[in-house]
């Protein structure tokens, strides 16, 4: 008599928590991924931000969110993707643009209450490889119906949507979620200055969710931000 496999018991086995289902791999390969431009983060994300899905990037002020967003935008533009940034409050730094011009980035400055509508318009247009909604410090409320609609649009258009905010937006339940810890600044003493010079920040990226599943084990990476 063949052995009977208890599937319910197998799913609770500790080994199962460390394995990725074949279906999840198939879904990921079908969608494709968009590199973030940061090898350590790409390794954490198992290739990059997923296309056709909604990803979350959360972190307090000075946690390095803007740097990660900028790196992802640059990477997508360099790959020739049509790219849009819905920027709540319009906090994009002109100094960063001097160092790295982004001439083909569609930049939309808006108020918090306009952000979701603007992102929906970008997604509806279709053809965008990457759309970023950077909420900055603002509170954005996304209802369940809006979240479902946005997710369906990203899936239909195969756009990688990255939601960047101070904390994970309630109701989103993104396909992938990364949180950044508050950064540690490095000040360097320089002769002639009253105080030191800020040389960079160090932060940690924690993977909260991947492939729509639970938080994986060992899902963190240290990131260094250099001052331009």
């Amino acid at each position: 008599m063949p052995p009977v496999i208890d599937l319910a018991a197998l799913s609770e086995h500790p080994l199962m928590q460390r394995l990725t289902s074949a279906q999840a791999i198939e879904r990921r390969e079908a969608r494709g991924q968009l590199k973030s431009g940061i090898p350590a983060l790409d390794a954490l994300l198992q290739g990059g931000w997923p296309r056709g899905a909604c990803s979350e990037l959360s972190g307090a002020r000075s946690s390095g969110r803007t740097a990660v967003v900028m790196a992802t935008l640059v990477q997508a533009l360099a790959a020739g993707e049509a790219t849009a940034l819905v920027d709540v409050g319009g906090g994009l730094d002109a100094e960063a643009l001097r160092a790295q011009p982004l001439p083909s980035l569609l930049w939309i400055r808006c108020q918090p209450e306009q952000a979701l509508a603007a992102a929906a318009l970008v997604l509806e247009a279709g053809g965008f490889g990457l759309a970023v909604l950077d909420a900055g410090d603002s509170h954005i409320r996304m209802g369940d119906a809006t979240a479902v609609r946005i997710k369906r649009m990203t899936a239909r258009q195969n756009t990688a949507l990255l939601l960047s905010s101070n904390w994970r937006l309630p109701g989103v339940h993104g396909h992938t979620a990364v949180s950044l810890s508050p950064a540690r600044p490095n000040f360097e003493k320089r002769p002639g200055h009253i105080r030191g010079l800020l040389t960079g920040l160090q932060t940690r990226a924690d993977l909260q969710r991947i492939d729509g599943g639970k938080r994986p084990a060992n899902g963190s990476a240290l990131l260094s931000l250099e001052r331009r």
Partner: protein
Amino acid sequence: MSQRIACAHAPQLGLQAILRRDPDLWQARNAPAVLASGKTDRARIVHLTTAARRMGIRPGLTVAQARSLGNTQGEALRILAQSEADTSAAQAALQDLGLAFAPRIDNESERVFFEVGDLGALYPSESAIMEAISRRALQLGLAVRVGLASSKGLARLATRAGARTSLPAAQTSAAAQLAGLSIHVLLQLSQGFDEAFVERLSRWGIRTLGQLARLPEAEVGLRLGPSGTAAHRLAAGNGDEPFAPQPPADAILEATELDYAIDTLEPLAFVLRGLIDRALARLACRGLACASLTLRLSLDPRGYDIREVPLGAPCRQTSTLLELLRLDLARRPPEAGVTGAELLMLPARVRPAQLDFLRPPGPAPERMAATLAKLQALVGIENVGAPTAPDDLREEQIAVIPWKNVAATVSPSPPTEEATLPGSIRRYRPPQPLEVLMGQGGPTALRGERLVARVLVAAGPFRASGAWWQDEAYHRDYWDVHASDGAIYRMHQDRQSGGWFLDGYYD
């Protein structure tokens, strides 16, 4: 292939111009309605519908007489006032009807002529061409009679033979088809055939064009002059009037006059929607989109309000254009009630796109144009585009240029280490006022709109100044501070006013 000229005739264009501006009137276009030369009871009836004619009303009666006849019949009679603006717009729409089928048109006040000989490749028969012309005219809010013939004069005459009449290219066949028409149709050709001319023919016993064609041409010319010769040639199927194409208007103009002044936005938006719909239908005839909007509002009792609404990209969507106009009107309402509106659209081709073989496919150009216009309507024109750094040392300055989905010249700098990336500052625009407690070595505490913190480490000051040759000269001391809330802020002190401002935070 021999030349084939189509003539689209919109009879009673003045009345049609009023009917097309109002969807309710257009739906009830077969109901009794008359067009008067003014708004008073003494104004004369100029045009009328067939239903009104059945009530015994005729052109030339006064409004009071027409109303009286309507009352005796017990039917509701609509009395409409003539409007120059609407009539001009309808005439322009008629020209656009011609441009929908041919690149060159010749037009008269109620007619448009265009060459359709080449359309045989697109339509199976001439009746299909005429049906397509009628259908397109209805989309523009016009009911037309269509005539097709080998010359302009015969095409004009063909419109009097029926709603859709095609005259054969052979002269004798065309003459045979026209033979049964009454000579009174000559009166409606607006070619100098007057009542006296037709009366003289009647006295000769000539009742139809066929009878006229059988007379010797030279003898008719001798007795009736050039008009007689022209009438005879038409009746004999020999129209030789030249087709003289005229250039189409550069811009699309739609206008309307209102019966009373409007001083709120919603009713005005309703009027504007009609104007935009009609103008876009005309642009669609030419396969073009709207590149720029100019709205001229006539104010009560006098004066104009002129506003230009630039568009980021050519657009063909009524809702988007209306939203842009609504936003502009909400931002700067007219100073008085509006008694008329004139909408000028500059046409443009939707941007052609050459797809890059090596790039992923981007957004479709036409769809993107509509999206850009919608985004501009949502967040404002100045907030949509490609960001660029201006030539200014004030850190909060940033400029926006029109966005184009061009191949990027972006090349990411390779990371020196696996997890090292250039940092950035998230800016507050404009910089937020800040209260700063200064110690001996620099700032020690901060208080702002959403910030109360002690300073753990401060680096600075880093001095910046510029524009001293202008009124907006600046002298600033920038500081980087690590605050007790965990953030690293960038802030500055204006050395002229002494005030502190929060520029943003390193992120």
